[in-house]
């Protein structure tokens, strides 16, 4: 019996190791271990054995079953691996074929830049406010200390809706300063981006409608040092860390002192090149301390509160950022343009 088992062991292990498919393996399992299989056949002869031999043979038989089962399992695993390999080889594709297109839309490049700026200011505790484009001349001019004879009020420069020039399309976002102050909630830290209108014929650098961003801070003890600190930070966020800036005196009727802010030309590092028209500096925005007359006119006591304001053109910023050379592209909305950003 022992010999029979040994024979079965050798035959089965050999057959299993030479087996080529899962189906054959299953057939071998039935052949050796099935109800009517060879091992069962051998075990049937156990009755003939003595009581002493039976447990020993039983043990041997169990060991044999275990070994065959292990061999089957092992073979099954290795066959599975081979099979998987073959399947994977079969499923190989040309990875250079194109992907399935998914089209997402594009934000308008100018609003990309605007959103970037909004985020910067929000991070500094600013709110974003919005206001009317059809505006009273009072807000667009008078309350901003722009007197009745100022050239910007001319019909050649500003669009009007009434013969008495009392209602116009705002020419700047600065009336938002007045609206914000007149609300009477202090302190104020706001920016007001929006559309503005001037009577300029369309060309590569002009458009009768364009966008500005106004900004204003009103609080107790606000100084020009504050203005410089804030705008320096903003400009570094926009143009990159380490951007060199300078402030120059300038004139706006509604700020005093007024200034313009330049950044050192990033192309030539200040030496002078075509980008900066040889000046070494590029103007980025206008700013100043809110004129005490404007504060008082909006019901804020200039002896108690002070503030600063700035304004910048959005189109020029976006054109600079993306190297767009013609303003008309911004409003043409050709998808071949829009989808570049």
């Amino acid at each position, binding site marked *: 019996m022992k010999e029979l088992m040994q024979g079965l062991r050798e035959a089965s292990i050999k057959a299993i190791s030479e087996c080529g498919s899962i189906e054959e393996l299953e057939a071998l399992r039935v052949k050796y271990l099935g109800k009517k299989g060879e091992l069962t056949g051998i075990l049937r002869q156990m009755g003939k054995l003595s009581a002493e031999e039976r447990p020993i043979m039983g043990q041997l038989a169990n060991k044999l079953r275990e070994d065959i089962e292990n061999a089957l399992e092992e073979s099954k695993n290795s066959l599975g691996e081979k099979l998987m390999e073959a399947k994977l080889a079969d499923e190989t594709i040309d990875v250079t074929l194109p992907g399935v297109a998914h*089209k*997402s*839309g*594009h*934000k*308008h490049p*100018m609003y990309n830049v605007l959103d970037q700026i909004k985020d910067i200011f*929000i991070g*500094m*505790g*600013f*709110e*974003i406010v919005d206001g*009317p*484009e*059809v505006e009273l001349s009072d807000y667009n001019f008078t309350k901003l200390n722009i007197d009745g*004879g*100022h*050239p910007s009020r*001319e*019909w*050649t420069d500003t669009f*009007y*809706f*009434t013969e008495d020039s009392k*209602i116009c*399309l705002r020419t700047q976002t600065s009336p938002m300063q007045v609206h914000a102050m007149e609300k009477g909630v202090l302190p104020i*830290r706001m920016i007001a981006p929006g*559309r503005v*209108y001037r*009577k300029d*014929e369309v060309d590569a650098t002009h458009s*009768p*409608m364009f966008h500005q961003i106004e900004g204003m801070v009103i*609080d107790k003890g606000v*100084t*020009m*040092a*504050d203005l*410089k600190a*804030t705008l320096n930070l903003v400009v570094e966020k926009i143009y990159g860390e380490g951007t060199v800036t300078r*402030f*120059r*005196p*300038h*004139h706006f009727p509604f700020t*005093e*002192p007024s200034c313009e802010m330049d950044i050192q030309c990033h192309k030539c590092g200040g030496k*002078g090149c075509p980008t900066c*028209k040889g000046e070494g500096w590029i103007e980025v925005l206008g700013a100043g*301390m809110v004129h*005490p*007359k404007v504060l008082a006119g909006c019901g804020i006591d200039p002896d108690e509160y002070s503030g600063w304001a700035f304004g910048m053109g959005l189109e020029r910023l976006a054109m600079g950022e993306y190297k767009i050379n013609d303003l008309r592209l911004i*409003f*043409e*909305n*050709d*998808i*071949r343009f*829009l989808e570049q950003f």
Partner: protein
Amino acid sequence: MILSRKWLNEFVELPIDEYDDKRFAEAMTISGSKGEVTEDLSKTIDNVKVGRIVKLEKHPNSDHMLVCQLDVGGEEPVQICTGAWNVHEGDLVPVALHKSLLPGGVKIEKGKLRGVASYGMLCSLKELGMTAVHDYPYAVIKAAAILGDYHPIDPAKPSISHDIHHGDVIFGSVVAADVLHIERFETYKWKVELDLGFRLVDIVTDCQNIHVGDMIAYDSKRGIICTLADLRAKQEEFPHCIEDGIFVLHEDCKPGDDVGKLIGLDDHVVEFEITPNRPDCLCMIGLAREAAVTFGKELKLHEPVVKARARGDINDHAKIIIEEPELCPRYTARLVKNVRIAPSPEWMRQRIRNAGMRPINNIVDITNYVMLEYGQPMHAFDFSCVDNGEIHVRCAREGETIRTLDGTERKLSTSMLCICDTDKPVAVAGVMGGENSEIVGDTAMVLFESANFNGPSVRRTATALGMRTDASARFEKGLDLDNTVAAVERACELIELLGAGEVMEGIIDVLPKPIEKRTVKLEVEKINALLGTDIAEETMRDILTQLGFTLEGDTICVPSWRGDVEHYSDIAEEVARFYGYNEIPVEFTGAISTCGGFTDVQQCEREIGLACRSMGMDEIITYSFISPTYYDKIRMPADSPLRDSLRILNPLGEDTSIMRTTILPSMLEIISRNYSFRNKAAALYEIGRIYLKREDGLADEPKIVSIGAYGNGVDFFVLKGWVEELIAQLGAKSAKFVAERENPSYHPGRCAKVYVGGTYIGVMGQIHPEVAKNYGVDAEIYCAELSFEALYSVKGGIPVYKPLPRFPATTRDIAVVCDSSIPVGELKDCILENGGAYLTDCSLFDVYTGDRVAEGKKSVAFSLTMRAEDQTLTDEHAESTVKAVLEALEKQFGAVIR
């Protein structure tokens, strides 16, 4: 304002080698006068020298060229060929040598002209960037008709015989003559000996192109050598006898001298952009004052002194009446007699030229020079043309006209201020003089006007007449009321200096209202508090004093030329400018006590934009104004209230003349543009405003979410899917779509109104094919116009978690047959209403019309999903739900199971 550095040195010593242009312009920019462009004029010309013609010969291979030997200060003469005939031996001429540069960037090199070497070029005034008339009036060239240069227009019929000889009559008293001898008589005049054949004559001529051996036409009756005009000949008949040629110098110079320096190009100019509040800086003295404070130098000003030796007093000859004191707050005048009109001296012409203006004659140049120096525009009238010697400053009368100095007849309106005599306007105040009182060659008596005019009035007049002049550009900014006397005194001083006339005694100075002295208090602490600085009072006082302010205790007296200073904040700016804007510390002086962020409305707008982009739409930005004809293009009914738009009274053009009351035309315009660019498909969105007229004349400006698309398989249901998803993204309840047949811009069978709950959101659908045609688009266009406000109002709140289902769902498919006119949406609503507690969802999966259903009927198939929260549903549960649904469908719509 263009500033000559050479001229500036007269007021502030800032030598160019110590303060180069970059340093100068940058420092000026930082102190508030923005230097835009700097130019070293000497770099525009190089290696151009004065040369003396030592020998002049005919070119061996050319009948119209001359070969000159020139002494240019070197050891050897230089040989140059020229085609110009106005040069003679002994002349001093500008010579562009080998490897030289001329203004305008022209480079000259040696070469060969018809086989003869030429080591450069002789220069005309034009080649030096100037004209004879304005820059060197003495160098105007007059050309005789040289008969050897005659080229008949018709070779078969020459006016002058080919073999003409001296003595032959050309016509009348004009005979041909040979030039036997020529010698210089005086500047630009020559003594010429002529052989008339029958006798010799000696005459003096100012024709400069004659040389020994030439044959010319001599008019024996008038005793002159004929020019082309005298022969009534055309230029093409005498191609080389032209009134142009080499600039023969009559300057204090010698061979080898630098021509650039000689003609004033040894200067540097800086162009300044002056802000409108600083008209006092639109002149040399104003900029010199800024420069002096900027560099800490002394400002040297000169007090004009007029001798006024002429007999007579202006007050006995002239009378000035200001009829409009608001528009003319001051008028100052002096009178000059025995005027001798001539070119002004070279130094004055150079300064005028380098400041970007043109020299004309001594009187006109003096007015311009004083304007450049003092910033006070002046005008010179020919006093003999001022009737009765009376100047009336008044507005033009109805129908009055004036021919201005530029030769244009101008219609004047009654708002335009004019300078008139008793009868007629002689100048448009502050803008331009009239031709009727122009300074001409025989002007004998000149009235100098130095007046102050109202800025806006001058600006409006200049704009209305379309003539912005150097004078009006200054006046329009509002000039110093106290500058008129100094300016007229300076003009008269220059008259005497130039010997251009005799200044009469007296001055007329009409000042209807006295000049108010303005004072501001010096508030040191307030200034420091505003700037965030700690500037000492002493420093502030120093800066102000240097700028011309005077201080009495704490009271600052503002100088008359600083009309812009009226408040302590203005003083703060003056202090800051010279303390240095860039020296002000960079620091946050206060704690930030606000919390920034987007408002809910702004957040919603961002979400909508994001949703649109995620569905593949590109964002556009369109103009807020449109043409009224666009309403017709979108088939808006004639009586639509939306046609009542805000109208711009002074639009750029019809296309941008009204504020849009609907956003649809803007979208269609962009769709049309992309279509015409042959972009195969486009899907676009804009969140833009419309402008609805309000009672008070202003506008309600609601935002509209505008969507538009064509191509790429976009149809009604793709658009509907976008709108549904957009609404879903906002967390709103699902939208309802109701067929809309009345909107004329849309396809009557493919348009829907969109509702969420009971709120109307907007309209969407296919654009009416007629409208598409109006926009030149031969494709189906799909648009949606949704109210942002309405979308915001239906926006859902923060989502509340619902437990995930623990028991499986059961599905059942049903198909019913009903009238084909019944909207599927209504069937679906009916199913959801009647399905009972277990029905959680119902989705359409088929609509069929055709052979297998009766005519006028359709089969609609839905998949029903059922689920309970507390148990697995049994077949009985499902069957009872289906039964309830089918019964309801039959009852409501007569729909039967298929």
